[in-house]
């Protein structure tokens, strides 16, 4: 038992030891600067969220281990914008998180959010606080579109950066892929009522029309509903060649399951919302077989140059990375590089300086050189296409094993 006297002794000893330690190293402790990581850790996208967060954490841990920025130590602070009641990201929670980050002076920048709906809620608050955030996966173009600057960056400067491209490319490029590679003549378009899903479906639909694909209809799924049989029966009666779904996992997994029963032969595709372990675990084979998905970045997890990185990631976290783990790692690298540059010039590392450095820098990352335009969008615009194809040699929930890379979608 811990007696009072013993406790006092121990406390004194600890104090003495730490004091001595300070003298011995004769060094001021590194100043801690925080990097927020805001993702949807609760709800339908939780598995991806963890894998994306791991990427940023890995970059931060490596920077700390190497003392990358002299005099500073990074601390990753996780924020969860998913709530149980929403079952996925919750814009209200995202806004709360943005306020928390802005009010914490030690937070110099953030990685996230995962979802565009969360990004729309966070952007105006971050703009007011001049806190830069780099999203590894949210692709709705409105947030960085100068047309909506009044809404998403009322303070003027770009604060919402991306290490992925946007749905302004993801949707239309996939429509090109439908027309040119899959030779699709007709399509039914669905979305999941979310900011990302509606935007992606709109962007796809616009380009599909231009390419001469017949749009047989457009409807909206309630992500909380369980039953999509009514709409799928309607789609079946229209007999389309293909189905395009703009949305994330919560509606997507149920849609895939029921679509397999009702319209098994129709070509089915979505954006990066259906490029996720949830599709494999919650839908499973054979229902998920044949689905197309895209991501708004180059495909890197199978790249030869990244073999060691992927192995390190698996070793550290016990799960395989996805491509957005890499864009998340890259996002953290950009922030770390900004901090390093500022520290090297002898100025204090604060959020204003970090934002400006992110805006102007060219950083060499895993996906190549990353730099941003004046709105915060990534200069490179690559959309990669995958098709789910069962591979018994790999774990059935392994994205790399089960999503087969089929190429880059033609640029719109």
């Amino acid at each position, binding site marked *: 038992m811990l007696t009072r006297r013993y406790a006092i002794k121990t406390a004194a000893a600890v104090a003495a030891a730490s004091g001595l330690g300070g003298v011995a190293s004769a060094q001021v402790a590194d100043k801690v600067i925080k990097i927020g990581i805001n993702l949807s850790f609760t709800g339908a996208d939780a598995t991806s969220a963890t894998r994306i967060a791991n990427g940023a954490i890995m970059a931060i841990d490596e920077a700390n281990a190497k003392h990358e920025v002299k005099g500073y130590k990074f601390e990753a602070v996780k924020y969860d914008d998913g709530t149980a009641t929403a079952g996925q990201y919750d814009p209200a929670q995202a806004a709360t998180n943005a306020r928390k980050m802005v009010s914490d002076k030690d937070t110099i920048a953030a990685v996230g959010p995962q979802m565009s709906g969360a990004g729309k809620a966070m952007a105006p608050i971050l703009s007011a606080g001049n806190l830069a955030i780099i999203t590894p996966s949210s692709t709705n173009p409105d947030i960085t579109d100068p047309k909506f600057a009044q809404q998403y960056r009322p303070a003027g400067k770009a604060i919402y950066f991306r290490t992925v491209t946007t749905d302004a490319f993801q949707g239309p490029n996939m429509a090109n892929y439908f027309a040119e590679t899959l030779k699709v003549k007709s399509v039914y378009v669905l979305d999941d009522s979310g900011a990302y899903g509606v935007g992606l479906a709109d962007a796809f639909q616009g380009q599909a029309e231009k390419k001469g694909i017949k749009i047989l209809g457009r*409807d909206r799924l*309630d992500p909380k509903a369980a039953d999509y049989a*009514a709409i799928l*029966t309607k789609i079946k009666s229209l007999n389309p060649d293909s189905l395009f779904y703009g949305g994330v996992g919560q509606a997507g997994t149920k849609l895939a399951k029921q679509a397999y029963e009702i319209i098994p032969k129709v070509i089915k595709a979505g954006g990066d919302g259906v490029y996720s372990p949830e599709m494999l675990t919650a839908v499973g084979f054979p229902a998920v077989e044949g689905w197309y998905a895209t991501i708004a970045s180059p495909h890197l997890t199978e790249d030869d140059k990244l073999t060691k990185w992927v192995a390190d990631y698996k070793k550290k976290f016990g799960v395989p990375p996805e491509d957005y783990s890499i864009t998340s790692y890259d996002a953290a690298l950009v922030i770390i590089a900004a901090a390093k540059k500022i520290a090297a010039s002898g100025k204090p590392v604060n959020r204003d300086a970090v934002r400006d450095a992110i805006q102007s820098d060219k950083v060499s990352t895993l996906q190549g050189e990353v730099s941003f335009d004046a709105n915060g969008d990534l200069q490179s615009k690559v959309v990669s296409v995958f098709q789910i194809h069962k591979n018994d040699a790999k774990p059935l929930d392994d994205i790399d094993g089960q999503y087969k890379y089929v190429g880059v979608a033609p640029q719109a």
Partner: protein
Amino acid sequence: MTATDLLVQQAINGLSLGAMYALLALGFTLVYGILELINFSHFNIFMVGSFVALMALEAMGVVGQQTVMSGFPLVGVLFVAFLATTMFTGTLGVLIYRFLLRPLRGVKGPAAMITTIGVSYILFNIVLLTIGADAKNFPNPLPPIQWAIGGAVLRLREVLIWVIALLLMGGLTYFVQYTRLGKAMRATAQDPEAARMMGVEVDRVIMTAFFLGSALAGAGGMIFGLYYNFTSFIVGFNAGLRAFTAAVLGGIGNVPGAMLGGVIIGLIEAVSGQMIATGWTDVIIFSILVLVLVFRPSGLLGRVAPNKS
């Protein structure tokens, strides 16, 4: 598909949904009929039921989409899972009543109803925290048998839902109409004081109502899982809200009313998805509810509640 085929197909879709809502609506109605209490924990007893069924099936080696069974093994496995689920959720309902609601009997105002909302959230969060946030794969042991009706397709799983729902509803009707306990239940629903004076053990009757209602919710949860092949901590909310609407639509407290309400809501959901757009389904369902309540405040078949005089 011709227009007729489409109508038949949507009717099949709607009836399956309706059967599920009806089972769930019965639980609201049974408890309301006796206690005049809307039991919101029912939403998530349904959800817990789907997880109990999932665990029972997995414990018997029925896992994922690959295990397909037929004949007696299939019936046996489903029956055991059904028993485990209904017993578990039935007992859960009784425990909720015994320890959380009975102490509030005689307390005026919304205390009991608020308690049920609290219990609902507790169940919801326990499942979220222990089982996790992502949707779970529910086994699908049913052989892929289907019949063509013109251009429409009737699958074994739809037939199974209808058969189970009809059996349960038939059993419940028999119980309420012809057994001693059932008669005691009706007597209590009419006038608890008079029933007590006639020697009815009111407490036992209430517990029976909670047991049956919760067991039906569990059965509904298991059917949900078998039908959609997934479950998640969040499924209780939507199904529960619609089932509650069904109970009110049919006349809350009224057993045949709950069944009718369930089927109507299911059919509206399917038909509005076809004719208008699925995005509008909720607007349509709840508009119809509001209209019915404006013109027939006690629901289609009339409300049944304890006599307050």
